[in-house]
């Protein structure tokens, strides 16, 4: 085998989901997805970010077989989601965004049926394990209508895990779940990842994506704006700031400092602000030396780092 072939095979093996030229126009004519192309890597946690109505749920629904694509192809483990739907769906577990459960069934019935639909025989041990992991074991005989909202959301996750999926889609899994349980949920996600499960999630809590994800995709108006490793994205687009509180207000930069790009005064003239990209040569030493040689003095020094949230806002802001 040539080296190139080996490399190619390695990359396709590593792509668990491949999306090509995918578009979706709903029946009412609304175009929710426009020519989407990207791949999901085996074993990663991929966070899909985007504002309300960006097309996240539409994209997930197409991969899971709930919405028909207008054009384009999606393969999961190299099987086509339409031609080989039985195979592709058996790899996947889906936690939908909306809480949709039959209120009259018990927790155990709900998850047991879910496993049955996947075509798998009932497995009491798995049910106990999953319900325990999700702190639902003591509610196993309760009807869904007797559960709180956060518990219901965890039942949705339990249902998806009944398929013992290779790929888990979590569409806003932590909406309405309290802080402690949310942490528990992320521990579970980490556990699944360590077992080799690929996880694709959407969330509006950007700190979650920042904390958990290996890669980030940003979608806006049905188009993928960015797909990047989280760390690289933070480095590339993340900015840092040094803020100096001046002893005396200053209206204009002193002549020694005008040549520094990224250096500015706050509107009230009270602060001197230096912004720089994390990935670039910072020039802080030169700047501080120059300040020392100038007329200004300062009483305090602070630093600030932009979060993924700031990056996200700057990416999805409409430029009008």
């Amino acid at each position, binding site marked *: 085998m040539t080296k190139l072939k080996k490399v190619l095979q390695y990359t396709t093996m590593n792509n668990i989901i491949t999306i090509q030229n995918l578009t979706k126009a*709903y*029946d009412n004519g609304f175009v929710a997805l426009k020519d989407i192309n990207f791949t999901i890597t085996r074993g990663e946690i991929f966070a899909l970010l985007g504002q309300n109505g960006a097309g996240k749920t539409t994209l997930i629904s197409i991969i*899971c*077989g*709930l*919405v*028909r694509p207008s054009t384009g192809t999606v393969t999961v483990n190299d099987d086509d989601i339409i031609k080989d*739907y*039985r*195979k592709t*769906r*058996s790899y*996947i577990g*889906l936690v*939908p965004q*909306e809480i*949709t*459960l*039959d*209120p*009259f069934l018990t927790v155990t019935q709900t998850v047991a*049926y*879910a496993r*049955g*639909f*996947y*075509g*798998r*025989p009932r497995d009491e041990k798995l049910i106990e394990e999953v319900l325990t992991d999700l702190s639902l074991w003591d509610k196993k005989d309760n009807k869904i209508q007797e559960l709180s909202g956060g518990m219901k959301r965890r039942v949705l996750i339990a*249902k998806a895990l009944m398929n013992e999926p290779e790929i888990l889609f979590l569409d806003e899994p932590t909406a309405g779940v309290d802080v402690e349980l949310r942490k528990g949920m992320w521990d579970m996600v980490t556990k699944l990842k360590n077992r080799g499960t690929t996880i694709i999630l959407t969330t509006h809590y950007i700190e979650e994506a920042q904390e958990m994800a290996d890669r980030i995709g940003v979608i806006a108006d049905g188009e993928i704006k960015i797909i990047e490793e989280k760390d690289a994205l933070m480095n590339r687009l993340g900015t840092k700031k040094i803020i100096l509180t001046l002893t005396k207000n200053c209206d204009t930069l002193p002549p020694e400092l005008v040549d520094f790009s990224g250096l500015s005064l706050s509107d009230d003239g009270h602060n001197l602000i230096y912004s720089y990209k994390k990935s670039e040569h910072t020039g802080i030493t030169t700047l501080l030396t120059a300040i020392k040689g100038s007329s200004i003095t300062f009483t305090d020094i602070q630093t600030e780092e932009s979060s993924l949230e700031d990056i996200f806002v700057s990416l999805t802001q409409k430029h009008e």
Partner: protein
Amino acid sequence: MNKIGFATIYFKEMARTFRVPGQTLISPVMTTALYFVVFGSAIGSQVDFNLEVSYAQFIVPGLIMMSLITNSMSAASSGIYFPRFIGTIYEIFSAPISYTEITLGYTLAATTRALIIGALIYITALFFTPIPVEHPFIALFFAFLTAFSFSLFGFITGIWADSFEKLSLFPVIILTPLSFLGGVFYSLDMLPPFWQTLSLANPVVYMIEGLRWSFFGIAMINPLISALLISIFLMICFGLLSYIFRTGYKIKN
């Protein structure tokens, strides 16, 4: 084939039937029993009816057919409509189950429910009058064919409906008049010729005639023709369903 998936749908639907038996089994049996008491025993004894069977006996196959039709249809339509309405249908459409398996799971469960009701009605009627069944297997065949056809029809309306209003539209404005005018309470030859001819356009007439022939060996319509026409109705329902699934109409958007 996803046998477990199909069986899960079937048994989940049957469990629904037995979870609320008052609503799903007892109430339809009660209603029909009342028809039988009022029309068969009270009024029927006054009717001068020159067939080999009494009026009370005569109306039993019709009453059974009528409840097979309404119950198979309502079981299948609510079976698929309810999960669509509350959104749990995602668990089935995202699972590795084919449309055929989904359809058969729901419609065979509805058929089973209707046949249980039909049997209970037959047993109830036995308390009032002896009812011989001349061709029991053919009777079962007609009962199954009818219940299955209307389960498919109900399944289609459950996919088509996007409100409870629409869901109840078919049973109320189509099914009830068709069953009442289908010859449950009278023999076709009691009608004036014009209405007799018009009745032949009513599919329920063939179903009732078919079952009545299996019970008593008397019919205004050749049972083979009845069987053929019910089969055509069944085929039309299959055709409609496969169109729905091919286009994803109302289910994949």
